[in-house]
């Protein structure tokens, strides 16, 4: 483990080794590919956020008269498609994972660097096709594309939207393929599975889900596209087809997909909690095993999205029980992070603030998941704002916070610059407040009966809706600030030392920014992860 070094920008590193657009667009360096992804998903995040803004503006009044009902349907559909497929799923894995994972295993690059680049191009093509679909008229089926509306009755750009999503799916599969191969085959000498940082365990589990789940939604959407184009298909009730079969195939992936969205975020939290409390993780094996358990159990619960769709009550009971089981490993992680904090030397830097935010908000989101997993409760709250609030607590309160925490934490590693701590803390605070003001009222709205995906609502719900919209405007400010100060810091930020956080992570044992080949010599790992107790000399230098 290296001692903290003086803050000098290294002479040659992956950013300045080559200049020009070709050196970026034809790169096979996993770090540059991570940056390319970062730019792309930031663009998509703000596009998805734009749709969210219009949704919340429309919902300020009960009559919902900002946009027509048809337009509103397109807004929530496109918000969902862009946020799910083009932001949440790639965010931590494709940006942070691509950048950091090879370094964490002590390798020079991913197992398949060209496939890594291909995965980014798949993403960009998918995003372009999706944006095309939006610009020429949009799609209004919901991101869930339920049949027979999507196959037969919708008059919008369903086919091209599906093609865009299929490209994003391929991007995801190639990313997962690289993660699995890299972790299995390219670990540095001495890096056993038990010594791996937990971010690696989480991303490994994520990759397994990407490999096994994505192809099923791909075929489900291909079947919808085929039925739409040739007017023949297997979901058409007139022929004896079952629309619910589409839902089985769709949710077989889309439920595990939410674990694709949250597992890497949990991996980030494990890194942040240990670094910023200078402590080993409590119960390493349990946290690692919990990642695998979440991936496996996550495949057993998809029917809980279909409780009121017409599946058999016995099948619903099975899925409900499974849904309770899948909460257990997530709870284990929350307990273990909390126990790690106990008697730790806690530092309240921005990444840690985001970690705290995640732990609290993810717990709330997860607990409300138990409410909807109960059949009796779900009958009442399904398709209401209760569900909307539940998943936004996890996706936004959880994943987005973890993503922002990760960006701040690894920013010095990526760019050799520190972000401005004051502004960063302020933004984190604004985001936390804005988030809760936006989404907590939605639990109440849902419980009181306001349906989701409705452009208008009963007037007694207006106060809570206005509060939610006000929260959304605060949240928007919170998200815009990092965009500004992070870009500012690239030029004017304080130059970062190699390891500003004094972290024991393998990625921090090389310069910041790293050279293209990551390490001057392949490292040899001799200790378990997070061995802060053995290295009191490691400390913050930022």
């Amino acid at each position, binding site marked *: 483990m290296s001692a903290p070094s003086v803050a000098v920008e290294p002479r040659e590193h992956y950013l300045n080794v080559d200049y020009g657009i070709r050196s970026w667009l034809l790169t096979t360096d996993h770090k540059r590919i991570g940056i390319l992804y970062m730019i792309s998903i930031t663009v998509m995040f703000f596009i998805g956020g734009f749709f969210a803004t219009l949704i919340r503006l429309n919902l300020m009044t009960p009559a919902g008269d900002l946009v027509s009902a048809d337009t509103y349907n397109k807004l929530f559909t496109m918000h969902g498609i862009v946020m799910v497929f083009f932001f949440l799923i790639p965010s931590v894995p494709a940006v942070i994972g691509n950048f950091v994972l090879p370094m964490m295993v002590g390798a020079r690059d991913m197992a398949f660097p060209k496939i890594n680049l291909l995965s980014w191009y798949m993403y960009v093509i998918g995003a372009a096709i999706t944006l095309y679909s939006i610009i020429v008229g949009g799609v209004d089926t919901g991101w869930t594309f339920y049949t027979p509306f999507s196959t037969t009755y919708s008059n919008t750009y369903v086919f091209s939207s599906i093609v865009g999503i299929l490209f994003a799916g391929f991007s995801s599969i190639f990313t997962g393929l690289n993660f699995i191969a890299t972790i299995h085959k390219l670990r540095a000498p001495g890096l056993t599975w038990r010594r791996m940082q937990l971010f690696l365990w989480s991303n490994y589990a994520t990759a397994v889900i990407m490999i096994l789940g994505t192809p099923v939604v791909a075929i489900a959407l291909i079947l919808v596209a085929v039925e739409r184009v040739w007017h*023949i298909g297997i979901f058409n009730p007139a022929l004896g087809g079952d629309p619910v079969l589409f839902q089985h*195939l769709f949710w077989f992936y889309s439920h595990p997909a939410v674990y694709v969205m949250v597992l890497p975020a949990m991996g980030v939290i494990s890194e942040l909690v240990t670094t910023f409390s200078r402590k080993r993780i409590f119960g390493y094996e349990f946290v690692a095993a919990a990642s695998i358990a979440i991936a496996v159990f996550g495949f057993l619960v998809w029917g809980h999205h279909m409780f009121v769709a017409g599946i058999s009550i016995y099948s619903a009971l099975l899925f409900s029980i499974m849904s309770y089981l899948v909460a257990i490993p997530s709870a284990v992680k929350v307990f273990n992070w909390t126990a790690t904090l106990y008697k730790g030397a806690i530092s309240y830097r921005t990444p840690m603030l985001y970690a705290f935010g995640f732990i609290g908000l993810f717990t709330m989101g997860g607990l409300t998941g138990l409410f909807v997993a109960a059949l009796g409760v779900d009958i009442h709250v399904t398709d209401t704002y209760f569900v909307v609030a539940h998943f936004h607590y996890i996706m936004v309160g959880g994943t987005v916070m973890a993503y922002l925490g990760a960006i701040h934490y690894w920013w010095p590693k990526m760019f050799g610059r520190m972000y401005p701590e004051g502004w960063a803390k302020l933004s984190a605070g604004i985001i936390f407040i804005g988030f809760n003001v936006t989404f907590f009222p939605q639990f109440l709205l849902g419980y009181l009966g306001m349906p989701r995906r409705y452009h208008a609502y009963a007037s007694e719900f207006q106060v809570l809706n206005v509060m939610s919209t006000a929260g959304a405007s605060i949240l928007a400010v919170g998200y815009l600030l990092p965009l500004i100060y992070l870009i500012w810091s690239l030029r004017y930020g304080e130059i970062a030392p190699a390891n500003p956080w004094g972290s024991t992570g393998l990625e921090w044992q090389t310069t910041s920014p790293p050279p293209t080949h990551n390490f001057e010599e392949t490292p040899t790992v001799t200790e378990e992860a997070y061995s802060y107790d053995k290295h009191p000399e490691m400390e913050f230098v930022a």
Partner: protein
Amino acid sequence: MSHSTEAGAVTHPALQTPYRDLDQQRETATLGMFVFLLTELMMFGGLFCAYLVYRTLYFPSFLEASRHMDLTIGAVNTAVLICSSLTMALGVQAAQQGRGKTVVPYMVVTLLFGCAFLGLKAVEYYHHWHAHEVPGFGFEFTSSVPGVDVGKVQLFFVLYFIMTGLHALHMLIGIGLVTWITICASKGRYTRAYHNPVENVGLYWHFVDLVWIYLFPLLYLISRMHL
């Protein structure tokens, strides 16, 4: 191509970043191909799920529809693919044993079998089209067998065309891959030290054969009992 060993060692031109030696590269690439084939398994699996559901629900209609499949072409095609898998396996073996140039005739024969499969499939599709058995293109079906419903028979044919169509598309891609291997092999690219692409294309080819091994009985052999 950059090399990843410490300075001074002689490296094989096919060695890529980030590998320390060809063995590690080969093992990783083979693992990668198996993981990729898992995605293919799940994709076809979704179609098999749909097939399983509807066959269970609508057995009489599926049974009747299956009788309209061309058993001769189906059985011959199955044999063709099995032969192509043999020649592919023998070609891979030649590469493994350092007989790089012998790979070429094995690959060419594999290609011929593959093209024969697609040719027979095209003939079969044409027959179906002629008999108005292609959904969406003037589908007509009459049957006096009790329990048989035209809509459900059409479901069978939709699944038949999509499943065999997706399979045929994979065959086409396989033919492209085998052609690429043939060209590289004819240039002497494959040696005992480096021949992993041949192995991995072989894995892909065998997988596509595997899918057909299940498609054949499920689509063609529900029952051929003489009534």
